[in-house]
């Protein structure tokens, strides 16, 4: 028999590393670490050997060199004399643009079709089901290419808008021209605008120069201020409700608070819309939305919207029927029941997978390459790589960009989850 005092006397035996539960896990982890580090070292050694064999090295200097290629869609100033770094930035902004637009439209589509699919109306719910199943079960790439083909193959070319009896005409009271080169929509202009402010950092951030329209900043600030006032009004309305039981009607006050200052500001700045106009063989003026952007945006939104519709449907279904019944039995109207009882519960179920759909949409925007949309993978990971021969660095940077974006979004999601988790035993 062993007694308590026996154990310390025994000392350490080698076999304890394997059989003693105290040391076993350390042993396993040390072995795993050694194996993984060895594997990484092996990969790194191979890479170095291969790079030197090809006469290459690993450097990011190419980002500072002249790019020499044009990018057809750019949100910031760029031309072929700018650097590869600048080209990457243009690509990153294009990725974020299509991802942002896509998330908004996909959410709208998803919520609409998710709710329609739950509708008691047979034909509506069937149509919604056809949309959801149709888009979910066909590869996204096919949708992107097909929608792009619709836009380029079955729309008129700008020259069809010319002449005495043009084949095509502009839509929405001559404001929008839909052509096989993309859509031309009116652009906001300011007669007495305040100009731009130039932001020009130095050092390694030298490529991050851009111009910001002061008009835009002023408008945004006004909007934020209006929203703050609206929030105040709502808080006050809640206070009144708490005190008297009756909630004053606030929607028209809120509408006024948001609309009036902006309208006044726009009037002061001399806001007008610059219509696209036909000049020569193409349209001039207005904002040109390229088909590649429109097709990618639509396809991503329709595809992801189908998944979001299922999430919304699942979320609402996850709230048991008893909740609705209890709310009805208490005398709450269907609208209030939705807002006060069903939605707060459904949102907790919906939001985490919704965010991961946003993440998927952002990653899927890299399919831009199929229709020539210049996102970060097409600029930095495509043309730049081809021109400089820096596959390793280019693809590594692209991967890193997506990874950081994903990590940022999922960190946010975890924070949100922790905040709204249902409190239970």
């Amino acid at each position, binding site marked *: 028999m062993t007694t308590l005092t026996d154990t310390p006397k025994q000392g350490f035996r080698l076999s304890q590393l394997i059989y003693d539960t105290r040391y076993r896990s350390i042993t396993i982890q040390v072995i*795993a670490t050694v194996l993984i580090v060895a594997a990484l070292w092996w990969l790194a050694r191979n890479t170095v050997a291969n790079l030197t064999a090809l006469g290459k090295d690993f450097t990011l200097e190419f980002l500072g060199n002249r790019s020499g290629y044009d990018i057809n869609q750019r949100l910031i100033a760029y031309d072929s004399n700018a650097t590869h770094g600048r080209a990457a930035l243009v690509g990153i902004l294009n990725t974020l643009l299509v991802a942002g637009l896509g998330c908004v439209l996909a959410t709208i589509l998803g919520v609409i079709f998710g709710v329609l699919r739950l509708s008691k109306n047979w034909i509506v719910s069937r149509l919604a089901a056809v949309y959801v199943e149709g888009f979910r079960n066909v590869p996204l790439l096919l949708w992107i290419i097909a929608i792009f083909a619709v836009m380029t193959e079955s729309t008129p070319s700008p020259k069809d808008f010319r002449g005495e009896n043009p084949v095509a005409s502009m839509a929405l009271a001559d404001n929008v021209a839909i052509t096989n080169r993309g859509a031309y929509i009116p652009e906001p202009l300011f007669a007495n605008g305040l100009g731009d402010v130039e932001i020009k950092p130095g050092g390694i951030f030298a490529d991050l120069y851009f111009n910001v329209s002061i008009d835009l900043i002023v408008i945004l600030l006004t909007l934020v201020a209006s929203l703050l006032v609206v929030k105040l009004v709502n808080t006050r309305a809640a206070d009144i409700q708490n005190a008297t039981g009756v909630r004053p009607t606030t929607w028209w006050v809120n509408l006024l608070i948001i609309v009036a200052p902006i309208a006044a500001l726009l009037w002061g700045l001399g806001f007008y819309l610059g219509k696209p106009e036909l000049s020569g063989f193409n349209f001039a003026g207005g904002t040109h939305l390229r088909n590649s952007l429109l097709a990618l945006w639509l396809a991503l939104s329709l595809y992801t919207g189908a998944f979001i519709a299922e999430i919304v449907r699942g979320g609402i279904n996850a709230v048991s029927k008893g909740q609705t019944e209890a709310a009805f039995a208490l005398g709450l109207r269907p609208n209030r029941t939705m807002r006060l009882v069903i939605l707060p519960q459904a949102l907790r179920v919906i939001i985490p997978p919704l965010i991961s759909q946003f993440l998927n949409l952002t990653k899927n925007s890299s399919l831009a390459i199929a229709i020539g949309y210049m996102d970060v993978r097409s600029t930095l990971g495509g043309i730049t790589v081809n021109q400089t021969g820096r596959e390793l660095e280019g693809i590594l940077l692209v991967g890193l960009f997506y990874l950081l974006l994903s990590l940022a979004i999922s960190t946010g999601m975890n924070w949100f989850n922790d905040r709204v988790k249902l409190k239970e035993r």
Partner: protein
Amino acid sequence: MSDNAQTVRYVRESMIPPSEPPLKEQGAVKWMRENLFSGWKNTLLSLVSIYVLVKLLFALVPWFWNSVWTAGSLNECRETLAVLEGLTTHGGACFAVISDRWLQLLFGFYPAESYWRPILVFILMFVALAPILFSARLPKQLLWFSILFPFLGTWLLWGGSFWVPILVILGFVVGAVGFKIGGRFAGAFGAVALGIAGAALWWMIAMPSINGALHKAVALSRIDGTKAELLETLVTNPAQIDEIEAEQAAVQEKINELTAEKDVLVVEMLAAREAGSEPSSDQKSAFNAIMDELMVERRHYTALGFTAFKLQQAISDANGLLANIEALPQWEADLPNAIVTAAEMEAALPDGLHNLVSVNQVPAGTSPEAVDALRAYLDADTAVLNLHANIETAYERLGILGLAPVTSRDFGGFMLAMIIGVAGIVLSLPLGVLLALARQANLPIVKGFAVAFIEIIRGVPLIVWLFTASLLLNYFLPPRTSFDLVLRVVIMVTLFAAAYIAEVIRGGLAALPKGQFEAADSLGLDYWKSMRLIVLPQALKISIPGIVNTFIGLFKDTTLVGIIGLLDPLNLSNSIRAAAEWNGVYWELFVFIGLLFFVSCFSMGRYSLWLEKKLQRGHR
């Protein structure tokens, strides 16, 4: 007790039989009232939906209804539409492209005479899946077939000698034996180490030499026969080709006649339409007859051309093989000398230049003579490697005993999508299980590695990983190793799927009641035994719907391999459009490809939904 007992007393004398609901409460009227018109909002929604539906049907139905299935090119499609229906280009679909190219969309450029191989693999796949999906109703022994299927399938698809899959399987046997022996003498760690080492040694050293030896033996045993056969091919094939070409000319003649006849008819019928009258039904049936005949002749022509091409290929193959047979003795004689020379040159190299694979690697300040010596040595070394490769390839070609090899370059279409999808999921399962266990484990470092791997893979789009496979994988492997793109893509897709599968299985593990883990521990099972016998079988079963969903996602994502140059269905549709006769066909191809994906993904999705419901019921 109660003051109203008299009023409440009541006993039913006779039961009321069930009756039909009132008329307005049943039938189509009630259904419509409840489901379509139960309030003004609902009515509005219904009307809008019906309007949309009717619009859609009016746009799509004629297009499908008037579709043309027999035509040799898009122009002929349009001609047919114009003369038969009086329709413009977009009035009807041109599904003739599908009847012309559907085999290509399914198989890519896989040799037509071997189509039975992928088809057989596809059928066997279901046989292999059956014991996993319907475990309750089938004998356990069938699982052995499921285990053997990956090897059998690979062999059937790529071809080669029949012993190759057996040799690969033997590697697992060697590993298992190593595991047992190691376990007896050095405990769990020894077992794993010896098992892996044994299998690795077998695959990397023993297997290539056994394989080479077998090929050599077979090649030598029949070399005279082979030579005679090849020489005969060189004599007979040209004659056959001449015959076929003569026949082809005759068929071409026929085609030309039919085309001329058709053109005359088209002019007549169009003239009739111009004059405002419908072409007569005689004309229409004559036109259809000519088109049918034309298609038959065209197919005949293509088939003849294909045979001639095969015969031609056999001639060039025979020439190549004969040259190999001629050269083999010389190569074998040269090899020992070349090895000796290369070894001497390496020995003579100055210090610090050994183990280099390129003159680019020489350190700064090396003398030009040393660099030249290195260059000479590297050339000699390359020569040795080339000789080795030549001899091995020659014997492999001469000594093949089994199925004709097919290169990955020729794989394409839905077959490729299936191969990448299925291989990705099947190969990723073991890795996914390990990652899921590692992520659950109570070992911070191991867990950290697993989390990092999973998050990195999932945080980056598949397309970036595919570019990594096509552009970067060669950097990460030892110099001078290279293997084909399909294999690289399968490796990358496997790693990609493993991260997703790991998350699915983690969900399955989390869904298991804690009692199961505790019960396994209390039975005295060690970690791996409790995992293998108790936990994993249950967790995997719960995870099947998730695995199927991952597979659906992956299957759809296989279309991305087109972007790095493989011939997935979408990329094939581009190459079909590149042919002059089908230039401009979009929708018909999209509809066909989309429909195939839809049918497979939708049915798999339904299966996983059904399974999920069944599992939920089973758990209650």
